[in-house]
């Protein structure tokens, strides 16, 4: 592992113009010597062969520098979530080709978990790493990165181009203090998934859903409601969705103080009521999206609040249940007001220490263009952020719930936008865990006090 990291660091070490000797010289010796010695230790390798072993290692840092910087083609490093579908790789290739020599994009995979991704980016940016040109940010990070001066704002023509045809709510997540810092790459939101063999009509409200679950439980049928109840970001998302659906918000408009109030108390009440009802999964306080998916696939549950990835998974893992597997809008808090599910997704931003910001902005526009978003949506399964794609035939054919997602996105809510979002999220999840122990009024008061501290970056986080 450390070896890998070092090699990586060497390959992307900036090479000052004309200073090739020093930059690559250091890189040439370090990995080469280490590897050579490692090989030689086990068994005596003839000297000539040893040199041969080392040669390719020398060549790789030299080659990438040579073809990148030296030939005058700037290399843009794109750090994004690890994608197994190949959609991101091909986007990087497409855009490199389309750039016709103006720049070259290299896609680097970040760790799998959002926390891991953020940590890696933050560590590099805090050290003013100039090898980060384009990065994929979770929807909740824009304010934080912008305030710290780690990403560049979009202005003028590039901003106009980026906003054109982009869905409104995802665009909000990349905006901080009226400036656009990160451009929506993909988005995501939860739907209600249910089994049509157990209920004829999907419930429209939380009250109806709990009633249906109680009825099913009384009949001895699968009745669980699967939702994310573990102490982590997912619990905050659940709370945020309910608060917004009840007509409130976590922070006030200026993101300077907690808002919460009555809608928050109602949200906390709904969470507690579910946790204490027969609809609650016994492992609710430890469940994340994937455990929810597994529980539904195993046939224990009647309802599930989750992202669209559960659909192809059910098709592959339980074709029998898949015949009854349906989706519906997220349940409402008030029958009269549509639910406002929280959106997730990735936004693309340009690093403040990048040596090629102009090309990086251009590259982002290419990486998120129509073709690349279709590929990412169809192969990678993540909903796109360009409005017109939701009526695109090819996309809809591969994405049967496209319309439900689009409608959910129109009403969607965003998570509190503040540089201190991590703290806000942690205090919410900490206070509301486990959901069965929530005391609505008191819990909301606790959250209120702690958010006020968090916004000032005062005090500890749990």
């Amino acid at each position, binding site marked *: 592992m450390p070896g890998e990291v070092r090699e990586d660091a060497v390959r992307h070490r900036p090479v000052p113009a004309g200073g090739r000797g020093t930059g690559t010289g250091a890189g040439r010796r370090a990995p080469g010597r280490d590897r050579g010695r490692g090989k030689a230790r086990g068994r005596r390798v003839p000297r000539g062969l040893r040199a041969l072993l080392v040669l390719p290692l020398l060549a790789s840092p030299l080659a990438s520098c040579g073809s990148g910087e030296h030939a005058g083609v700037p290399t843009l490093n794109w750090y994004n979530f690890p994608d197994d579908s190949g959609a991101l790789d091909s986007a990087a290739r497409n855009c490199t080709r389309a750039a016709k020599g103006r720049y070259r994009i290299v896609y680097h995979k970040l760790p799998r978990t959002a926390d891991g991704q953020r940590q890696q980016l933050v560590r590099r940016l805090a050290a003013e790493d100039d090898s980060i040109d384009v990065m994929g940010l979770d929807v909740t990070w824009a304010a934080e990165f912008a305030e710290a001066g780690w990403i560049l704002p979009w202005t003028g023509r590039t901003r106009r181009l980026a906003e054109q045809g982009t869905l409104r709510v995802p665009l909000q997540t990349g905006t901080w203090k009226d400036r656009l810092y990160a451009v929506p790459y993909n988005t995501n939101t939860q739907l209600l998934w249910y089994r049509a063999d157990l209920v004829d009509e999907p419930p429209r409200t939380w009250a109806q859903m709990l009633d249906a679950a109680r009825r099913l439980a009384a009949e001895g049928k699968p009745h669980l409601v699967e939702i994310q109840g573990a102490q982590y970001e997912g619990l905050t998302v659940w709370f945020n969705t309910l608060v917004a659906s009840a007509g409130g918000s976590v922070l006030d408009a200026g993101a300077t103080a907690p808002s919460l109030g009555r809608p928050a108390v109602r949200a906390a009440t709904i969470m507690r009521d579910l946790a204490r009802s027969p609809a609650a999964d016994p*492992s609710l306080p430890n469940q994340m999206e994937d455990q929810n998916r597994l529980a539904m696939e195993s046939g224990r549950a009647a309802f599930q609040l989750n992202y669209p990835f559960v659909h192809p998974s059910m098709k592959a893992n339980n074709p029998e249940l898949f015949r009854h597997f349906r989706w519906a809008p997220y349940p409402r808090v008030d029958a009269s007001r549509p639910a406002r599910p929280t959106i997730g997704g990735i936004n693309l931003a340009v690093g403040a220490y990048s040596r090629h910001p102009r090309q990086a902005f251009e590259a982002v526009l290419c990486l998120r263009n129509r073709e690349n978003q279709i590929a990412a949506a169809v192969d990678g399964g993540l909903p796109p952020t360009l409005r017109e794609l939701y009526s695109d035939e090819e996309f809809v054919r591969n994405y049967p719930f496209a319309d439900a997602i689009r409608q959910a996105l129109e009403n969607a809510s965003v998570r509190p936008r503040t540089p201190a979002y991590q703290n806000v999220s942690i205090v919410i999840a900490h206070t509301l865990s486990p959901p069965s122990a929530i005391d609505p009024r008191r819990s909301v008061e606790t959250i209120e006090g702690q958010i006020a501290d968090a916004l000032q*970056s005062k*005090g*500890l986080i749990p």
Partner: protein
Amino acid sequence: MPGAAAAARLSAGARQERRLGWLLCAPAVLVMAAVTAYPIGYAVYLSLQRYDLRFPDRAEFVGLGNYAAVLSSPFWWEAFGVTLFITVVSVTVELVLGMALAMVMHRTVLGRGTVRTAVLVPYGIVTVVAAFSWQYAWTPGTGYLAALLPAGEAPLTEQWPALGLIILAEVWKTTPFMALLLLAGLALVPEETLRAAMVDGAGGWQRFVRVTLPLMKPAVLVALLFRTLDAFRVFDSVFVLTAGAHGTGSVSILGYDNLFTALNLGIGSAVSVLIFLCVALIAFAFVRLFGAAAPGSGEGGR
């Protein structure tokens, strides 16, 4: 330690040799200063600043403000209590089990090497790997141990069961280490003394309490000191098993969360410095309470 008078008595050659000795270890001292003294000093410096990576413009000197914030926070005291609990329980259990294992290893006649190797296996497994296997074992759906519990029980999701499992993982992992240190102590007890006690009519328990334990006290203290300091800084097991959720976070987890998730370098450094002070205090208390028998109290001085 020989005093100045002794130094004056040294011949010119010896003095030169001593100078050479200092010169030879100077590079090592410099490296140590660079990799330990500097980071510790920097952490202390940071802990006196209001310094949040996300609000670089608001950085300022706040004196002991961060320490006040940490020490007045219920989160710190909760984590502190959890850490103390884990430390006391796990070290006590390890001491008892380790002593029993050491006795077994000491007395085994047949296959001594095999027994020692078998006992050491848990200690040879990487902590994170061991913690992951515990985590899977106790998670309903993936684990053989969770399957033994009544349906619907998820022990890692409740505070006390989770703390118990963290302690179990720690005990399983480090008892061999304890046993090894105690075994070294047992070897110090001369067989003749035990025989003499037997001749005087001492029973097995009396021989253990009155003869064996006092003679191996230094080894017991070293073992206890090492394990207490280790246990107080417990991080990996907690991080993997519960990530500090459900009131199971140790002080190290608290420091990590504030440094790496909240990016609050000031508060996080204050937590780290406080952990450092606690550890120093524990070491000091051991030396003080157990006096001359403790390591580092310098038998040579008398």
